[in-house]
């Protein structure tokens, strides 16, 4: 292919540039170095934050270079494009040659080939050439593979090979990267990312984009039935402050009818019609309230109240009560609520109500008694929402990449030739030669073994 005319053409120069390994190494290193900057400069922060950190000139310079959203900048994309072109060109340049070599292996061992091979050995044998050819073919079949036999004049050539597929490992890996990029592009074009907060008991039909500048309509509704936050308990069974689980009980509604219900937790999302909902955050919706029941001495319920801190509630014909304080563990007796009771014509009185002893207040022997039923807190759940039709393409690419690497690194194309020809002294000249595309040291040992095995064969 060393054609002088072609080498000087511009097209060829461009092609040589894009297919060169030096370009590949350079692009890999530039991408590695460039990526570092985006980890030092925090990405996608509010402008005010950058203004605080950087001097004016530095801010303008970095902003001009798109350093605050570097991985989506035109120049980083250009690097990725250059990388992809390099990959594609290398594959287009080399794959046909490899295919040609694989389809038309050199099945005869001539003198020129012999000189290029690392492992060559020769010996002589008495007896019939054809008989030895059969014997050696059998021996090759046991180690490398059944040989192809070519008769060329007086000589007989045997050729066997193994691990041809290893020649393709590198192309599988390179193609897998392009497949991953295609998957990423499909996901970016046809998918979306979103975010939504849902109050307990409410449902939504829209989610907002991560930047919050736009909303996306869903063709179904999602309701949050309940959000629960549980904590780890210590060895004594007491609750610690370490969260154990964030869980949202979600329902998918089509035309108001529930079609799917699932409790999602971090690492276990809900999926409906290709849209995924991930537990991401939570928050308290409004203030906590205390549940207080008003009962007659016989136990009959008069009314149930929700007391918010410091907001008095009137009980007709009885008085006003206000939630004043709450203790999660009052004198070792568990959660307790302090209420202030104001009755007409009497000074206000304060009483502690224990959640564990709902009848405790009976001892006041009043018209009604109060019992505390615990705190109630409304939550909202924060969900990450995603649709990514390209993600499976990405996984196919990832799987191919690992397979390609294993083939490329751990398989080797091993070839073995035997040439038998009549010698001038009436014996048979035998030449054994071999080569391996990888791990030559290991093949050297294997070759020695084949060599001694073959020499030991007797008719």
């Amino acid at each position, binding site marked *: 292919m060393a054609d002088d005319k072609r080498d000087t053409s511009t097209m060829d120069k461009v092609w040589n540039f894009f297919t060169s390994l*030096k370009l590949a190494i350079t692009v890999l290193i530039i991408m590695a170095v460039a990526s570092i900057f*985006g980890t030092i400069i925090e990405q996608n922060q509010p402008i005010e934050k950058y203004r605080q950190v950087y001097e004016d000139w530095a801010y303008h310079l970095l902003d001009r270079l798109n350093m605050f959203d570097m991985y989506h900048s035109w120049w980083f994309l250009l690097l990725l494009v250059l990388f992809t072109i390099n990959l594609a060109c290398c594959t287009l340049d080399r794959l046909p040659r490899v295919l040609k070599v694989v389809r038309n292996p050199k099945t005869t061992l001539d003198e020129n080939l012999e000189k290029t091979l690392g492992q060559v050995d020769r010996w002589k044998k008495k007896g019939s050439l054809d008989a030895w050819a059969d014997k050696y073919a059998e021996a090759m079949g046991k180690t490398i593979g059944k040989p192809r036999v070519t008769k060329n004049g007086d000589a007989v050539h045997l050729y066997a090979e193994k691990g041809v597929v290893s020649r393709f490992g590198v192309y599988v890996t390179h193609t897998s990267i392009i497949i991953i990029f295609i998957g990423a592009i499909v996901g970016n074009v046809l998918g979306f990312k979103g975010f939504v907060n849902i109050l307990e008991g409410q449902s939504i039909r829209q989610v907002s984009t991560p930047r919050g500048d736009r909303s996306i309509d869903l063709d179904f509704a999602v309701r949050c039935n309940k959000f629960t936050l549980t904590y780890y308990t210590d060895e004594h069974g007491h609750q610690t402050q370490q969260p154990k689980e964030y869980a949202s009980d979600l329902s998918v509604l089509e035309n108001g009818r529930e079609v799917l219900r699932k409790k999602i*937790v971090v690492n276990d999302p809900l999926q409906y019609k290709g849209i995924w909902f*991930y537990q991401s955050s939570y928050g308290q919706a409004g203030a906590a309230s205390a549940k207080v029941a008003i009962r007659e001495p016989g136990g009959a319920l008069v009314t149930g109240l929700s007391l918010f801190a410091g907001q008095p509630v009137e009980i007709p014909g009885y008085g006003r009560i206000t939630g004043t304080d709450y203790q999660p563990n009052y004198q070792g007796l568990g959660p307790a609520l302090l209420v202030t009771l104001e009755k007409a014509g009497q000074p206000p009185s304060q009483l502690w109500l224990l959640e564990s002893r709902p009848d405790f207040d009976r001892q006041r022997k009043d018209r009604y008694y109060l019992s505390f039923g615990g705190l109630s807190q409304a939550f909202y759940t924060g969900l990450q929402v995603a649709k990514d039709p390209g993600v499976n393409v*990405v996984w196919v690419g*990832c799987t191919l*990449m690992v397979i390609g690497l294993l083939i490329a690194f751990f398989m080797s194309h091993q070839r073995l030739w035997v040439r038998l020809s009549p010698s001038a002294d009436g014996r048979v000249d035998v030449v054994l030669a071999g080569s391996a595309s990888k791990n030559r040291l290991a093949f050297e040992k294997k070759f020695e073994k084949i060599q001694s095995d073959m020499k030991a064969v007797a008719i």
Partner: protein
Amino acid sequence: MLNVRLFDLTTLLFGAASVNYVAALYGKKDTLARVGTWLCVIAAVVSTAAIGVRWAESYKMGIGRIPVTNLYESLVFFAWALNFFYLFVEWKYRNRAFGAFVMPIAFLTMLFAFTNDSSIQPLVPALQSYWLHAHVITCFVGYAAFAVSAGVAVMYLLKARQEEAKTDAGVVRLFPSSKALDDLVYKAIIWGFPFLTAGIITGAAWANYAWGTYWSWDPKETWSLIVWLVYAAFLHARITRGWHGKRAAILSIAGFLATIMCYLGVNLVLSGLHSYGGS
């Protein structure tokens, strides 16, 4: 707790092994190196037991989980993997000189672990996933292979310099030939690279399952990509004229420095989604 005592013992064994390997190199006494090997084998047994005990102890505490979830645990796991990978290399290549360049890395790692909180803490919700096992194990086997490669790359540079100068003095004389060292730098990386790749992929799959996005240019992700790119450059350099030999060895060392940055630097210096790895 028992597991921590066993890890402390492992630290001492790695320290003693390092001293033996280095002393063997300087004193040219193979007996010392052989002692080093046995110390490494004992350390392998003790550290494996320690991981098992720690796992069992976490179950006894009612928070049973694989012990690879905070900085202390990941450091001891890295040292564990490094020791096993090293013993494999020593056995395979029948040369104990490597120990002086690899075992100190394991020892320093354990010393660093020693200064960190070793208590067993329950898992935060974000880490409660089966992906955790696959992700951490693949990453750390990769890291261990890269550590071995970088250690040997240093040996290669020393040996290559001596071969160029055509001198034959000092401890470098005892190293395997530069050709053999170059081969080993490469061999360690072809083990590490698929594991790192699998580690990045399992991390991406997990991120996608937990957050709905497989790649978000978080500093940890980006640094893992940087490591991957450097080793990809190494793999191509090795078959390019003018790039194999010294430059490839330097890329192997650069790759391991990037690995350390990815593993520790990101958590200790930068901020991001992997914050639980830093405490």
